């Protein structure tokens, strides 16, 4: 077993895992926000990520260093998220969550084909030009762009937490999440909060996408894995558990990486889903003993 033959590979897998997980965790934050505040599962999450990536790619193609594309992606997606909220989402906020799943599914397939039309169907990537760093006598390799992504994600996550705690809008968001009617009675404009939350989610995805463009590759139709991983991370963490999202995200990344070594890459995604099913069933069984169920 290669992990036993080459012990430093364990550390390598762990590092690779959490670096991969960080980007998913960032996207998961956005999803947790939207889910917690508006009770909406945004199936178009992955598409927002890829779109953010394409915007950074466009910046790259224009000759500018893609790192500067990060704020561009962030702001463009923020505006886009706001528009989508005002056009479509506001109609489904008060309806059954299932409705929102389908509505955002419809939005996701629209975005996919629109991206295909605008950006073409080639696989693209943005080159950051960051190098590689070697540790422990060359036994551990870390691509600096991945490290950079990791740092950005952590900073992003902490910023969101700080923002939510300190700023007025942040507190308004939290209040609305706890009890929308009470917040309204106390003077919070919940419509504005919802719009802002959704836009913020899109912006976070845009930032994550920007990192994806530099670290991996882009294609109009590869958004689904990001959506799906965000789901899983939020569920495993439990809704409302924002710091837990970060831990879950990194953990998921590590699990995936290790399972690539242990079980083989082709089973990776199947294992991840099976894990999801098992966790859910186990949790519900535990609650059922107390005659409760997962909310």
């Amino acid at each position, binding site marked *: 077993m290669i992990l036993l033959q080459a012990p430093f590979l364990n550390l390598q897998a762990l590092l690779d895992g959490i670096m991969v997980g960080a980007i998913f965790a960032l996207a998961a934050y956005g999803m947790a926000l939207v889910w917690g505040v508006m009770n909406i599962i945004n199936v178009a999450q992955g598409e927002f990520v890829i779109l953010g990536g394409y915007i950074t790619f466009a910046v790259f193609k224009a000759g500018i260093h893609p790192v500067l594309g990060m704020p561009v992606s962030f702001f463009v997606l923020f505006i886009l998220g706001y528009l989508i909220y005002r056009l*479509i989402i506001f109609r489904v906020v008060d309806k059954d*969550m299932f409705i929102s799943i389908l509505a955002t599914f419809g939005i996701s397939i629209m975005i996919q*084909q*629109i991206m295909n039309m605008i950006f073409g169907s080639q696989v693209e990537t943005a080159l950051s030009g960051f190098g590689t760093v070697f540790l422990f006598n060359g036994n551990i390799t870390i691509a600096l762009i991945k490290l950079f992504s990791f740092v950005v994600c952590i900073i992003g996550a902490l910023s969101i937490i700080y923002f939510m705690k300190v700023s007025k809008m942040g507190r308004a968001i939290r209040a609305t999440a706890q009890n929308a009617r009470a917040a309204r009675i106390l003077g919070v404009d919940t419509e504005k909060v919802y719009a802002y939350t959704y836009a913020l989610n899109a912006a976070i995805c845009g930032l994550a996408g920007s990192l994806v463009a530099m670290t991996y590759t882009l294609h109009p139709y590869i958004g689904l894995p990001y959506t799906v991983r965000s789901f899983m991370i939020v569920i495993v963490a439990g809704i409302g558990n924002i710091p837990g999202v970060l831990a879950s995200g990194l953990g998921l990344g590590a699990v995936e990486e290790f399972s690539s070594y242990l079980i083989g890459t082709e089973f990776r995604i*199947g294992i991840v889903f099976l894990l999801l*099913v098992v966790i859910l069933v186990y949790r*519900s069984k535990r609650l059922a003993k107390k005659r409760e169920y997962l909310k």
Partner: protein
Amino acid sequence: MGFDKKELSGITFLLLLGVFAPFLFPSYRIQISELWLFMVYASTWNIQGGKMGYNTFGNIMFFGLGMYICASTQIAYSFPLAEWTAAGGVKTFVHTVEQYFTALPIGMILAGLIPAAIAGALGSLILGLRGHYFAICTLGIGIAAGEFATSMKIWGGGQGMTVPVWPKVDGQEIDVLGGSVNFFYTLTFILFFCTYFFLRWLFSTRFGLILTAIRDNEDKAEAMGIPTMRYKVTGWVVSAFFMGIAGAIYGNINGYIEPTEVAFAGATVGVYMVLMAILGGKGTLWGPIIGAIIFQVFKEFFWTYFLGWQRVALGFLIVIIVVFFPEGIMGWLRRIKPELFGEVVDRKARLAQVTIKTND
């Protein structure tokens, strides 16, 4: 269990369509076969999603399983399965007429029974979840099934599996009901009507009432002493049975089984069945049927005329359906013309009601 006039006219329309369509529109036979199957998908989804209030994204698992099981049986009955699916296999196997027509019904029966058994076994675990957790869990099952199928070499893995070809004599298809297209068309038609009448009967019994009770308030139903889990699982077993057979037939129509795109097609068929039921009106018997017809018509329309934009159009349609018709066509009809549904409405009293609009 009488039929009222509206229903009778509906059934007659479908019967006529079913019997004459292959002759009137011979080049659309496969589309119409698909339509019958869509109606089956939507109607069985309705048992969970509509009647019971458990939105499932995982019924596709039974569809895919049924497909693979039937095809495997058809092959394994006469030839070693592993060799048929072996990548780059150099041998060619040809079925004789007897082999084909003996294996096919066996395959179809197994395709119905095995997924039903699995639903029975897993049901008590999965159906313990509620609400969106149930939806997500079933989504996970659907995707995991597709992923594992891609790795199963005996089923051809990522290469997929070719279904046995309709037996030929002298290079021409043998004439049973007019060839393979007509034969499988007839099967889909029969399957749909079996599903329809079975569900119609099922919903009219106490079983239907209990499902509705579970949807309305499961805890209260349990408090009244109803063993809800048993009913939930039975409903799932019924869905699994019909979906499995539907999968078996579809595999033969398509001729080729690809794990995530044909069999466990969660992103297409898995979502379509939900949309069709919602479009037509979930919870009613005819809702899924109407939804399936409208959806299929639109889908074909988009693919012919909006090529290049078709997914944008489809996404747009989905958003419209979901935002403006969440109760579906049937629900919308019920609202504007409740007399059609046998509800008596006191017009004056209704107008006298005052609705307080809130921003809730």
